């Protein structure tokens, strides 16, 4: 198994009465009222430090993602964050779980920036192409939900083709027409960095991932037991499409809370976890499911309801630590307890890539480092050999060995 340290970069200074006072953390939460850029300066630097620390602690990858107009995640441009990380890390792979391809015009911009990151990092990039949430795409960027998925698919096709062909061609698409497709630079990884598709359980996405050999990453906040129907449907599709049952085809996201024991976990993590689920997930229901966002096939399969239903259940409720444990959202406790639960997850979901959330909500630096360090030292070694019989074909090969290191900062 591989473990990737995923930062959502929430805004940690939302007011205590945020949930009562504002209808949504996304789309229309007023930035000028809620976001303090002076505090924000400290927050960005803390968050980048934490990602860099995760590399030193021994995580395989460090992850950033893309969201817009919200207090849930402060990375409208994940590429800016990844660019900062290329200079201060050298081993960890950079898992960029943006870019929402349909939002870029032309999408070749994504091919360019991703290639820049791959070249700057010496071939350490994993390129993620999410559709993007309803909030980010339809509401914040005005993307038409009726055509969003079609436009997204066409954009990904264009990017992959540009990386593969590496010579000029004309592209006559429905949403993008380019006479000369010829992006510079080309990525170090040939033909291109591994492509990961973060998803929320759309049935067509499974088929598309298998057909194109993309990794499917199920980013659920509701724990691995709740993730089973979606991952079962994914593996069913893999089988139907004739793909091998290689666990490295798939990724899953999991909240982690390492402590001495269960009581200690509550003491350390209840506050930040409740902050996340009560404030960062306080999303007005009209925003996460605009018409057309959930496909008809997915509605027929009955998969769409899960995230929406869980979000709806949380809405209005004052969620407590115990609720989150009971619902299976957070895996908490001693390193042994966590290793046992993650083994159980590996049995049930058959996923080789785990995106670990060691930071959430308004967690203090001290707790983040503690959680990260103990997970890396005491949990990862217990699971390292899980799935070692499989080849991971969705991961960067060796980096360039003679990677140019950043020069030390000039002495004052």
């Amino acid at each position, binding site marked *: 198994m591989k473990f990737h340290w995923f930062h959502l970069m929430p805004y940690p200074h939302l007011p205590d009465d945020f949930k009562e006072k504002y209808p949504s953390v996304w789309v229309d939460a007023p930035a000028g009222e809620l976001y303090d850029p002076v505090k924000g300066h400290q927050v960005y630097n803390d968050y980048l430090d934490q990602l860099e620390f995760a590399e030193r602690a021994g995580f395989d990858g460090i992850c950033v993602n893309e969201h817009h107009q919200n207090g849930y995640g402060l990375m409208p441009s994940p590429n800016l964050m990844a660019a900062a990380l290329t200079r201060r890390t050298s081993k960890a792979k950079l898992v960029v779980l943006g870019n929402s391809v349909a939002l870029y015009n032309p999408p070749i911009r994504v091919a360019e920036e991703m290639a820049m990151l791959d070249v700057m990092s010496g071939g350490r990039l994993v390129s993620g192409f999410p559709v993007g949430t309803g909030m980010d795409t339809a509401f914040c960027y005005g993307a*038409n939900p009726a055509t969003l998925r079609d436009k997204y698919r066409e954009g990904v096709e264009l990017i992959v083709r540009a990386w593969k062909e590496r010579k000029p061609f004309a592209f006559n698409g429905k949403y993008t027409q380019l006479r000369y497709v010829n992006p510079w630079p080309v990525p170090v990884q040939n033909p291109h960095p591994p492509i990961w598709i973060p998803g929320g359980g759309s049935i067509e996405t499974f088929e598309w991932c298998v057909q194109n050999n993309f990794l499917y990453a199920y980013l659920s906040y509701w724990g691995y037991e709740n993730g089973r129907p979606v991952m079962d449907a994914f593996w069913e599709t893999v089988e139907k499409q004739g793909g091998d049952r290689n666990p490295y085809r798939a990724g899953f996201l999991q909240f982690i809370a390492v402590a001495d024991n269960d009581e200690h976990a509550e003491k350390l993590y209840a506050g930040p976890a409740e902050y996340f689920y009560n404030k960062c997930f306080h999303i007005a229901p009209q925003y996460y499911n605009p*018409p057309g966002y959930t496909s*008809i096939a997915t509605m027929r399969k009955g998969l769409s309801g899960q995230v929406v239903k869980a979000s709806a259940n949380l809405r209005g409720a004052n969620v407590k630590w115990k609720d989150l444990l009971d619902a299976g959202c957070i895996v908490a406790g001693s390193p042994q307890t966590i290793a046992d639960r993650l083994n159980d997850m590996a049995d049930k979901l058959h996923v080789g890539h785990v995106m670990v959330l060691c930071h959430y909500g308004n967690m203090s630096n001290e707790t983040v480092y503690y959680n990260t360090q103990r997970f890396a030292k005491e949990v990862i070694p217990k699971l390292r050999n899980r799935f070692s019989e499989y080849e991971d074909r969705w991961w960067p090969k060796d980096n360039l060995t003679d990677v140019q290191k950043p020069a030390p900062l000039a002495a004052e």
Partner: protein
Amino acid sequence: MLTREIVTLPGGAKTQVFRGGKGPSIVWLHGPHGLRGHDPVIAELTKRYSVIAPLSPGFTDLAEIDDIDTVHDLALHYDALFDALGINRIALVGHSFGAMVAAEYAAHYPSRIDKLALLSPFGLWRDDHPVADLFSVPYATFDTMLWKNKKASAEMSDPADDPNDPTEKAIALAQAMTTVAKYIWPIPDRGLRRRLPRVTAKTLIVQGADDAFVPALYADEFANAINGSKKAIISGAAHMAPYEKPAEVLALLDGFLGK
């Protein structure tokens, strides 16, 4: 009772048209609720007119709008349909989304439309009086924005008479609202204001005084842009004015269209 007819258009696309009633012919373009078997306004109209009611492409199958990307494509679609039906001079009545399409059609093909009735139309925009975001409520609850008392009448509350399965009902609603969204997202302004002066039809604009979606002053916006048009504001009604005050709206239509 309306009868259903499948019409094949040049290029092979198939589309549904419902017909019923006796009298002078009118074409009815429906709103976001689609064509429902128990639509009371259509039932009244069929007592006076021979009603031709095309079902908007997309409402029962989203694949139908794969190649209908814009309002211009919609105008082309209806033009092909009217050709296929062999109707030349048209009295066109549209409600809500259907009124936007009707206005677009009349602006694209002015010589084909004799009379144009726009009931609660949209498609224009004023920064100082923005049209409300129809999608600022979960789309399954859009009735809360459209009716004066914030809920649909009994006849119009059920998204589909058939099938009865709740998943299929949810899908019918999703298809209808996805279709509407395609032509109005994120702001219902595709440049109609520039095209409205092309309209030559005798035009009536009807709007509910308490429309929470499209402010009533938009009736003036349409009236000012369409030469020689008349407007009527229905008090005590909202966006669903023809359904909320049917007697008043039908009387206006009778006066305008002639029985």
